[in-house]
């Protein structure tokens, strides 16, 4: 039987590769949107006014305090009742971007706060504007703290993207779920699913720990 199932699985490989493409597309788009929104919110959180800070704080807590699956359901099922009809794919990208943005916001805010206050004071004293300080003095230094956990966040993003299979996005996990209906050999099918995720995530995990080591070396040198 194993041989037969294995052949079946080999035949559905193109289907699995489509799933890989979908996982990469959903995570890649969310990575771009999440990073942009996350950086903006993280900067606002450290330099905006109190009201903006409060709103961002509440948003971060709401996203961190609820499961991603529930967020996906809320965006997919509830937005239509406000007249916003969404296909599964855009709903998935919105949910995942939102999740990524909330975590990246915290990473960026932490990185900015880790820059010694003397740096901001020195820049203020020489007359640099708030934007100039951020652009030339604060962010370049904060990036050392931000980069390793940011890449770590991208790993979580790829893994969390598996949850959008629940609303019918045909990603790696969904392909596995469909395949197992035909090839009832769960270990084999989801072993393959795991391998495909591993192939995407493992390099990212290594990149993250490489950056972490490198940034520590660099910052002790400076």
């Amino acid at each position, binding site marked *: 039987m194993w041989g037969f199932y294995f052949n079946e699985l080999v035949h559905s490989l193109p289907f699995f590769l489509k799933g890989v493409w979908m996982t990469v597309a959903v995570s890649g788009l969310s990575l771009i949107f999440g990073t942009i929104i996350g950086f903006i919110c993280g900067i606002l959180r450290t330099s905006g006014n109190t009201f903006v800070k409060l709103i961002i704080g509440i948003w971060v807590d709401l996203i*961190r*305090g609820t499961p991603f699956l529930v967020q996906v359901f809320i965006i997919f099922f509830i937005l239509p009742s406000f007249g916003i009809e969404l296909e599964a794919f855009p709903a998935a990208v919105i949910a995942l971007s939102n999740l990524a943005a909330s975590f990246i916001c915290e990473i960026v805010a932490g990185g900015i706060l880790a820059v010694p206050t003397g740096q901001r004071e020195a820049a203020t004293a020489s007359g640099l504007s708030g934007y100039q300080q951020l652009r030339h003095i604060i962010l370049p230094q904060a990036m050392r703290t931000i980069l390793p956990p940011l890449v770590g966040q991208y790993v979580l993003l790829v893994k969390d993207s598996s949850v959008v299979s629940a609303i019918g996005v045909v990603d790696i996990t969904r392909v596995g779920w469909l395949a197992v209906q035909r090839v009832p050999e769960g270990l084999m099918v989801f072993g393959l699913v*795991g391998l495909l*995720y591993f192939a995407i995530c493992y390099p990212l995990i290594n990149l993250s720990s490489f950056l972490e080591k490198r940034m520590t070396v660099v910052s002790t040198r400076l």
Partner: protein
Amino acid sequence: MLEALNFRVILEYMPLYLQCFAATLWLSALSLLGAILVGIIACAMRLSQSWFLKRMAGIYIESIRSTPLLAQLYFFYFGLPSLGIMMPEWVTGVIALTLNSGAYYAEIIRAGIQAISYGQIEAGISSGLSYFQRMRNIILPQPLGMTIRPMLGQAIVLVKDSSLLSLISIMELTRAGQMLTSDRFMPTEGFLTTAAFYLVIYYMLKVFSSWSEKRLVFQETH
């Protein structure tokens, strides 16, 4: 938006929600206990002298960390039956959650143990403390104090991750939202109520986290 909510239906389903809330709590608690146990064992293996044990723990931790929980859950859900092992869904769910969080706990505990400086151990030896006194009074309280935040952070992740169990038909909070959606087609009521219950757990753990951290720091300074 709030006046648009049908509170009558929410009230009608409240007994179900409370039952599911309890289910989420005990499924998470059980998995948490298991995960800490697995984490301690995996960490001990990783820090052991044996090449084989080290390698096994490494493979376990790496493969968990580089694949999504949902794929792991399906791996057990569809895989165990194909090995002829039949068990109730909730057992499969708890196994998947335990093994998943166990890998993360192994890393948290390891980071805590490795952060103790050898000077601390030497100081303990030179002041004449016995091995058990050193362990009890000097070594163990330190990683406990340092790791309490990541430990509770992982507990929050575990509670949220337990929402994925709804996808293998286990009755818990997210499943309750799905029921309200499929029975009455009221996803707004269904998932917002679900989200509110998760937020309760989230805030309780968050408050507990900062409280226990303060307490432990306080003890350390005494």
